[in-house]
């Protein structure tokens, strides 16, 4: 903890080596975060790059009160959302195969999957669903916060999440029955 504080302080003083060390410390995990929001690895790296530039620019506003990783992650997520809003047309449409049949999403199947498979499963969702699911289920934002971030209604956020979860549940059901390979297709625009 003490090391982290002195590392951050060195970064605020524009110490290049410290900045690189901080980047190396958090970049892999933050790229994992960006990857869940992005359509491709290249886009994820763009998000990471943009996010870290912002982090280093705003580092002097970090008050050393809460977790640094939490602060960093918030900036990275906000940057990712900004990029998505700027370059992607978020469509909040229902593309569930069958609207009538919506099985309950099970945590057991997810627990049995590899992390990469889970991430690819999330990434296989349409942009709008994926973004809301990431923000609500993984980052822990409220629907009101999500609505503010994405510029949508709170009810839209709720319905998007419900539909995303239903779509995931449907895919998880198939995965449970037939295996993962055929049902997780990551879209690359």
């Amino acid at each position, binding site marked *: 903890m003490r090391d982290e504080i002195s590392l951050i302080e060195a970064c605020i003083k524009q110490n290049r080596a410290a900045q690189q060390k901080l980047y190396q410390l958090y970049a892999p995990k933050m*790229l994992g975060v960006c990857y869940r929001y992005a359509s491709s690895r290249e886009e994820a790296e763009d998000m990471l790059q943009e996010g870290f530039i912002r982090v280093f620019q705003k580092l002097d506003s970090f008050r050393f009160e809460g977790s640094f990783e939490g602060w960093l992650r918030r900036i990275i997520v906000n940057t990712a959302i900004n990029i998505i809003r700027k370059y992607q047309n978020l469509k909040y449409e229902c593309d569930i195969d069958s609207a009538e049949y919506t099985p309950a999403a099970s945590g057991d199947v997810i627990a049995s999957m590899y992390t990469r498979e889970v991430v690819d499963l999330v990434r296989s969702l349409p942009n709008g669903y994926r973004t809301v699911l990431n923000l609500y289920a993984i980052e822990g934002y409220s629907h009101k916060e999500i609505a503010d971030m994405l510029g949508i209604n709170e009810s839209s956020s709720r319905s998007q999440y419900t539909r995303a979860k239903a779509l995931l549940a449907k895919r998880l059901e198939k995965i449970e029955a037939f295996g993962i390979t055929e049902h997780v297709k990551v879209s690359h625009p």
Partner: protein
Amino acid sequence: MSRFRIHRPFEEELAKKADEFSMQPSLSTWQGVEKSIAKTRAIQTYWKIGILSLSIVAVIGILFIQDDRRSTASKTTETAITLLPPLTDQPLTSKDGKDSPTTHGAKINARAKKEKSVPAITQMKTRESLQGSSEFKTEKIVLKNIIPKKLRIGYKADPSSEASRLSLRKRPPSFRGRDAWYVQVNYGPAYAYRNISARTDYARPLEDTKKQLDKGVSGFSARVQARYHFSDRFSLAFGIGYTRSGERIGIAPKKDSKVYDALAETYGYETTEMNTPGDISYYTNQYSYTELPVTLYSKKPLTPRLSLTTGLGLSLGYMSKTNARCYDYRIDHYVNNPKFLRDWSVSSHAQVLLEYSVNTRWSLAAGPEFTYALLSTYQNYYTLSQHQFSAGMNFGVQWKLFDVTKSRLAE
């Protein structure tokens, strides 16, 4: 916002798995981040140097202008008192009883004579009151109208008199013979960097990498010059100088160099920055030149003591000291102080200086300076062309070799 809030097992498991996921970013991502923050740092440095330079110039300018006003006012008072003796035999009043310009001047002169007999403090007070009075202002106009020009210039006046000495001080600058020679010393910190371009297509990747990884460094220049004023406005300075410039280079790990692998197979494997994975290594390249600068100055007086001087010049430099790592394509390796560094350089420089004459012999100067190397740091056969440039401040002192004013007085 509360992270990892548990809704149901689904969200909990999803967040847990997602949180475990990490990926190794590519090197170019960090390079992009670093390039951007370095640019911010450079902009901040430029702003700091710029604001500091402007502040110094502004403070010096304000101080000098104030000082100059004080000294001009003081000189005028003295002139009013001392330049009037030839007029004392004029009648004090005109026929109609009113003061003529001449008699008015004589009255002040009489008043000045009285002042000589009173203590120094009283004299000072009288001078201050004179400066503020309308009488004093009128006197300035009278002097212009009635004092013969040759007396105002003072060459024909009695050299031992105060009037003569003061009028010599008022002599407008006119450089002749020995009077025109000055010795000048300049020093200036600078931000040094380079323009780089590839001469061949196959060197473009190196150019791109260097553009991403190289950074500016601080440098300096120092010069001792003789300066000859061949007119009131123009002067030429020439002498000797020393300049240090350079750049910080980043050497990225490179494991896939086919040329190096081939060399390694032939000559044996060696662990260097070319084949060791890990962080980018940074080195500061320094090129030190002993120079022969020639500068043409143009001076525009702002006040009697203050002038704005612009200088343009060229320097012939010899690379007297080098501490640089450069990429050698022939061996696909970074080497220290390679032979393809050019020994000689020609660079141009431009200065804008605020010059202040402290007295007849000494003057000070300060202002921004920009230099640009006209020749590449590397020989023409090398794959990259690199032109150094620097931007910074220049502080100078100028000393007149022969004080002709004194020798004239002695004559």
